[in-house]
């Protein structure tokens, strides 16, 4: 082990590699801050640039860019209320609320620290797990994936807001929207209305942009001559306090990192769900379900820790088995192939030092991007004091370019606006948008893996050990939700 690490370090301590990684993470930060450019789009744009680079340099570049996106996106989520990338959407709720109370930089400090440390820990987990990973990935079969997804959606639907019924409507709608397009188990396209675009169903990026970015842009336009966010002084001491907050909440933090790593490792679930699950786990313990309530810093730490942690997690199956843990990892894998490397079991035998070097790059990226983000955050905060009517159209243009660039498709842009209208309604009437997004992401997983589980194992699939544990967790989620709503009905508890 020690010689692997020293060999990895010598690979990394190579000026071009470091410089390129630095460039990558800077680009990632900026793309993260710009709403409209998700991590996936960023990777897709950067992929052509790695031709001709050395393997570690090229992949390190992509990895650094991708990891930095979520760090950058958290600041936009907090200070502007617009998620920089779909994975930052869970941060908006509490982060933005904190900002409006004047504690924006407190939230930013917490988010950046949680991101940096979360990423660091997951890089460590990556190094430790790589050699012994195969049994873990192989133990997670279709039944486990199905139940994990079920627990995820139940938690978010039932625990996220005070009104379980609204959460269920949102989740149900998300699940239903997910059915558009090819059904994975039969290949039949559903509800495609004879449109080629809809053969592949509704796309995630326009959905998230529409649901989260458009309502905020409308709000900014509405603010007119007033600053984008009124009365928010910037207290820089708050940054340090925010950082301390993460260390004061070790349980929340570690649990969120754990969720990120595990969800990242399991191929099939997709890393995007990690922040929502972590958020639900953290916020599910609230006593009051007042939707207007002051932002809870847990609601910032949890998603941010997990969305950086999932990077390390997703690298595990990608490097160890050559199986991408998420769509972004698939692109990263493509980067490897372009540079002539084929990740997989034999890759680990021959190139364990390269894999470790990547983990080191990941760790360093997370730290450096958090540090770099501090001055950038000041810039973003300045933006927040710009007049709403000036900011709105500019953000709108960015969102549109981002939406179009993802698939070179005008239909994507149209859908942004369609979902924008839905997002407006949901925000106004307090329906959980994260629940809809999660329902959308998990829908195909729930349907497909239940089908596969039944076909491959029969109904007995639930008796597998990990499945049983997950099943019990599911029961726990339902019980918790029921008890909570009963408690709220007791006399003495006021408020909607």
């Amino acid at each position, binding site marked *: 082990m020690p010689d692997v690490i020293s060999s990895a370090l010598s690979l990394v301590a190579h000026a071009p590699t470091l410089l390129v990684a630095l460039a990558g993470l800077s680009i990632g930060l900026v793309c993260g801050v710009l709403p409209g450019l998700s991590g996936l789009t960023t990777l897709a744009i950067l992929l052509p640039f790695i031709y001709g680079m050395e393997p570690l340099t090229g992949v390190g570049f992509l990895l650094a860019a991708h990891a930095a996106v979520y760090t950058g996106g958290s600041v936009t989520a907090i200070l502007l209320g617009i998620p920089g990338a779909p994975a930052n959407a869970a941060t908006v709720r509490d982060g933005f609320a904190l900002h409006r109370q004047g504690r924006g930089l407190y939230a930013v400090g917490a988010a950046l620290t949680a991101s940096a440390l979360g990423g660091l820990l997951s890089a460590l987990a990556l190094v430790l797990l790589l050699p012994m990973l195969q049994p873990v990935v192989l133990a997670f079969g279709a039944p486990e994936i199905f139940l994990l997804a079920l627990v995820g959606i139940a938690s978010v639907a039932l625990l996220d807001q005070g009104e379980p019924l609204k959460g269920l409507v949102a989740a149900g709608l998300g699940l239903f929207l997910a059915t558009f397009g090819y059904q994975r188990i039969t290949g039949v396209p559903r509800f495609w209305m004879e449109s080629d675009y809809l053969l592949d169903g509704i796309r995630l990026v326009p959905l998230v942009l529409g649901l989260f970015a458009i309502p905020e842009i409308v709000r900014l336009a509405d603010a007119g001559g007033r600053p984008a966010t009124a009365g928010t002084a910037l207290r820089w001491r708050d940054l340090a306090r925010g950082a301390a907050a993460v260390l004061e909440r070790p349980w929340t933090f570690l649990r969120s990192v754990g969720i990120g790593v595990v969800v990242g490792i399991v191929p099939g679930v997709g890393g995007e769900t990690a922040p929502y699950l972590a958020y639900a786990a953290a916020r599910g313990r609230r006593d009051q379900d007042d939707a207007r309530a002051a932002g809870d810093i847990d609601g910032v730490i949890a998603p941010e820790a997990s969305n950086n942690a999932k990077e390390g997690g997703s690298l595990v199956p990608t490097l160890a088995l050559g199986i991408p843990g998420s769509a972004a990892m698939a692109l990263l894998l493509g980067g490897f192939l372009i540079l002539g490397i084929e990740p997989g079991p034999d890759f680990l035998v021959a190139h364990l030092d390269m894999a470790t070097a990547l983990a080191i790059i990941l760790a360093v990226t997370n730290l450096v991007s958090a540090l770099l983000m501090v001055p950038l955050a000041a810039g973003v905060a300045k933006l927040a004091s710009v007049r709403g009517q*000036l900011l709105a159209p500019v953000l709108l243009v960015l969102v549109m370019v981002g939406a179009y660039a993802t698939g070179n498709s005008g239909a994507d842009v149209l859908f942004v606006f369609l979902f924008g209208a839905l997002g407006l309604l949901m925000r106004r009437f307090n329906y959980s948008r994260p629940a809809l997004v999660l329902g959308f992401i998990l829908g195909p997983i729930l349907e497909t893996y239940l089908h596969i589980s039944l076909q491959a194992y029969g109904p007995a699939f639930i008796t597998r050990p990990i499945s049983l544990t997950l099943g019990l967790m599911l029961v726990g989620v339902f019980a918790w939700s029921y008890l909570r709503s009963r408690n709220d009905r007791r006399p003495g508890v006021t408020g909607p």
Partner: protein
Amino acid sequence: MIRTDAILPLLAAGMTLLFLLSGWLFYDYGWVVMRFPLLAGALTIGAALPLWLRHRRGPVEPGPPPDRHGDGGIAAEFSHYLAIAAILPAVWILGFVLGPALFLLAFLRWHGTGWGLAAAMAAGTALFVHGVFVQLLHLQLHGGVFG
């Protein structure tokens, strides 16, 4: 009269029902294809119905607190939404470089910004989109109907 709070459950349930019916009557999907949409639809409609009924009868608890944004309600929000949606035809006709510029100009002027600032921002946006997205990143952006 439908209270505004009932819009969303009604919309969700209605749209779901519409698509489910289309699946059955128009597309003629079999059971395997329809079973998950039916489940999802049942969940949505099943949760939306009590919400709709509740809001139809009027508020049981005090209504939601006055909107924290202080705006004029849902109508105002939608008029802003439509104003923003005007960027779509602009981009479609003029492409991603000129379309946003024109939209920005119109939007800012309409909201009372001075000509100077509006023109500067419009030009800046066009330059940014062209310089960064088209030239630097080689994105293939739609060039408009005449492009």
